[in-house]
């Protein structure tokens, strides 16, 4: 019984007892209904944004500006990492160890399954929970599993490099920015959705710009995460030789 465990158990019991006594003494009224603002979103999301999903409607339409700058933050972090880690990915081509046979075969199948599931998440992002970020990160699982199982050199060999991935991310974000920027030509504000974009094409519900945002965001997220994983997988020996302190 080390000191850590004793402190842990003390903290645990103290929390429990404190909340028991607080409940008995205060017995607070627990919230039991939605806030006014939230009610507004839940009631009006279909009419105003053509999306039955209130969260996606807020994320990409009501408060779309937040989300665009949030993507900018992730983009800046990836670019900052790339600026910090500038070195050649050639080293990855030399040694390729990988993991066992079973993991390789399973990873192939799982990667396909993940890709199709992620596509479902992305393309139903405006109809059901999910959307650009969860879908894109699910695609990124596929590539991030491939990196340890088959070794990152396999990806490099197929022509995937982190600079290219960042460029793909930049291109996807440029497209996303264009989607946000296009309404300006008609004198509307940026990130305008329903006054500019159609709610459906050929009878298929696409909720205006929301599905476009989801598509580009998922591309951007997938390529960005893969880029992070790729330049983190360059072995340290490659670094020691070239550019030290």
């Amino acid at each position, binding site marked *: 019984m080390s000191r850590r465990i004793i402190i842990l158990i003390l903290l645990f019991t103290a929390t429990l007892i404190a909340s028991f006594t607080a409940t008995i003494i205060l017995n607070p009224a627990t919230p039991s209904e939605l806030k006014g603002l939230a009610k507004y979103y839940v009631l009006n999301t279909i009419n105003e944004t053509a999306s039955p999903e209130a969260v996606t409607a807020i994320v990409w339409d009501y408060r779309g500006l937040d989300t665009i700058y949030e993507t900018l933050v992730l983009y800046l972090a990836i670019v900052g990492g790339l600026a910090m880690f500038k070195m050649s990915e050639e080293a990855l081509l030399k040694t390729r160890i990988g*993991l066992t046979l079973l993991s390789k075969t399973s990873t192939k199948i799982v990667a396909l399954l993940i890709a199709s599931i992620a596509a479902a998440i992305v393309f139903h992002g405006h109809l059901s929970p999910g959307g650009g970020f969860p879908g894109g990160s699910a695609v990124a699982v596929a590539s991030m*599993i491939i*990196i340890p199982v088959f070794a*990152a050199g396999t990806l490099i060999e197929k022509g995937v490099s982190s600079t290219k991935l960042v460029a793909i991310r930049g291109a996807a974000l440029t497209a996303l920015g264009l989607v946000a920027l296009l309404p300006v030509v008609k004198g509307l504000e940026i990130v305008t959705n329903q006054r500019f974009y159609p709610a459906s094409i050929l009878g298929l519900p696409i909720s205006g710009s929301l599905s476009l945002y989801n598509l580009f965001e998922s591309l951007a997220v997938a390529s960005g995460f893969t880029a992070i994983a790729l330049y983190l997988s360059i*072995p340290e020996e490659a670094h020691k030789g070239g550019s030290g302190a």
Partner: protein
Amino acid sequence: MQEYVELVMLIGTPLYLTAVILYSYRLIRGPTIPDMVLAADALSYDLAVFLMALAVYYKTPFLTAPPLMLALWVYLLDVYVSKYLVTREVGV
């Protein structure tokens, strides 16, 4: 039909949640890294089932994606930790 679902959940919940606690015990105690990751694995597979059942219980089809994601991402944890243990360098 709802009362039957309530009944099934009433039987199922203690089983699954006890299992969650026992797995967590192993995750917290587990003397070695593989033990802990294995426990995290089992814990999240267990939770995947239970959270999926929650979708039936809450009567909504929109709670079904998270369990799948949980299972998948824990697989990622497995792969990364074991690759680290084998080669000390994840990407090669």
